């Protein structure tokens, strides 16, 4: 019984995505059954659509800048939080969680207010700032459990044996937390790639992919959107799967190496 329910749950989640994917290959513009045959014409149209391709490139740019910034800020914070205790840690944890505890609408209007008051023109730069704010809490949550179990005395042992702080970080800390941080960086990219609600307020003339899809949706229903949607979602799902595989592979090889050490 429960098993059947769970599979229905999964089917409900994937059915709309499957339907969109199916119709993106439809040879006729109709979005209803009977299905008349496969064709790649909508994809051909979307790939020659310069607005779409430009915004895709912008999204990749913003996603990369966001992931890089969030990773630096987030890793420093996570390592810092592991050294702090009690009230400071709790307070900072609450503060860093704030941006996702509020609706995106609230962050969007607060940021646009700030940018207009300090005279910062809206551009991909302001979009990146907004995305860092939005992804940082997710990054911290993703690395938290790994960092909490990280034994600080390993780092201190390296220091006592004469390593400089930089050496201790590079030779001891990084190999342990590296895969987790890599996974969280990819998570940040994927979240930024899909972000729409805050972006709609803080973007200027250069738009990102979700904004382009949004303006396509507001105009007439055209089968182009199907192809655009499927491209967008397969990119974000692909990125997430890649990240997952990377973390899984590194964990497995680390476990194997440890098992070998024990055997020897």
């Amino acid at each position: 019984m429960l098993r059947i329910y769970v599979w229905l749950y999964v089917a409900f989640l994937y059915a709309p995505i499957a339907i969109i994917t199916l119709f993106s290959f439809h040879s006729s513009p109709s979005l209803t059954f009977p299905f008349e045959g496969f064709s790649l014409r909508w994809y051909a149209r979307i790939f020659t659509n310069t607005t779409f391709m430009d915004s895709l490139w912008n999204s990749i740019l913003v996603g990369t800048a966001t992931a890089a910034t969030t990773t630096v800020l987030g890793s420093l914070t996570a390592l810092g939080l592991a050294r702090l205790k009690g009230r400071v840690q709790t307070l900072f944890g609450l503060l860093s969680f704030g941006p996702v505890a509020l609706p995106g609408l609230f962050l969007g209007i607060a940021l646009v207010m700030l940018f207009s008051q300090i005279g910062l023109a809206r551009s991909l730069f302001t979009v990146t700032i907004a995305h860092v704010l939005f992804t940082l809490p997710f990054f911290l949550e993703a690395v938290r459990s790994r960092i909490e179990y990280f034994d600080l005395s390993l780092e201190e042992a390296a220091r006592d044996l004469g390593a400089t702080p930089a050496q201790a970080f590079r030779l001891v800390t990084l190999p342990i937390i590296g895969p987790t941080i890599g996974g969280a960086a990819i998570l940040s990219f994927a979240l930024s790639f899909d972000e729409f609600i805050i972006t709609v307020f803080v973007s200027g003339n250069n738009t990102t992919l979700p904004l382009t899809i949004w303006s396509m949706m507001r105009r007439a229903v055209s089968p182009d959107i199907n192809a655009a949607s499927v491209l967008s979602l397969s990119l974000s799902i692909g990125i997430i799967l890649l990240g997952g595989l990377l973390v899984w592979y590194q964990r497995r090889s680390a476990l194997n190496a440890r098992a070998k050490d024990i055997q020897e």
Partner: protein
Amino acid sequence: MLKGSRREAMGLALVTPSFLFLLVFFIVPAALLFVCSFWLAHSFRLIPAFSFDNYSRALSASGFYVLTWNALKNGLCTAAFTVALSFPTAYFIVYRTRGNLLFYLILVSWFSSYLVRIYAWRVILGSNGLINTTLMQLGLIDHPIEVLLFSPFATILTLIHIMLPFGLLLLVSALRDVRREYIEAARDLGASPFEVLTRVMLPMCYKGIIGAFMFTFVISAGDFVTPQLLGGREGMTTGILIANQFRSSGNWPFGAAMAFLLLAAFLLVYFVFVRLLHLLRLAPGRRFHD
């Protein structure tokens, strides 16, 4: 001792960059928005003032209550269904499966782009959409059912679809704290499945339930894109009204004031929900405070 304080100083130094970032781009903008909610706007220019005009203007308009109720209704329905539908799946993942494959399969769907999912439901529910055309081809209906799309129903259905993976994630991590042994012990002592659920599991993952409910509630009640694209005229919410003030040449201070009123309504819902769990005796008693 010395090592401990050096460690703390290092910790503070490491969190400083993020703290500054959050200060400048989160705390300051939120404070600015609050201050601005007391300002006035005159022909699209902001005039610093200290006036309650924006608040009284919102609170004296009957439309504001209707739209806020719509927003809260979207949020409450979505949160209730998301938690109720995800709980059995979370239970299955935590206690009945070994690997995490199913869990990851569900989480991956979370990354299938928010807008794309709204669009997909528009294709499915529209009057020329999949459901209507299929029903008509089968001869079950003569005319398309118009209320499927552009109604609060469409908004809530889509929001549930969007929120399910996120709700599940929060519920799974909450249930991972409820050890299997407690459930087995309760069962051995003669508790019925219903009693196991209401007297052991729910009180023990109380915080996780509140977290999952409130997160889904806040995100979906504050969402303006789904109701705008799928809700129709009846599904208009405060969120759309606020967004409009900030996009087209609108009244920013008025939008800011409405945003804070909406946040106040969210806080009220939080207190009522927590109180309700206590009244239903689903909250932990004094025995296990952690």
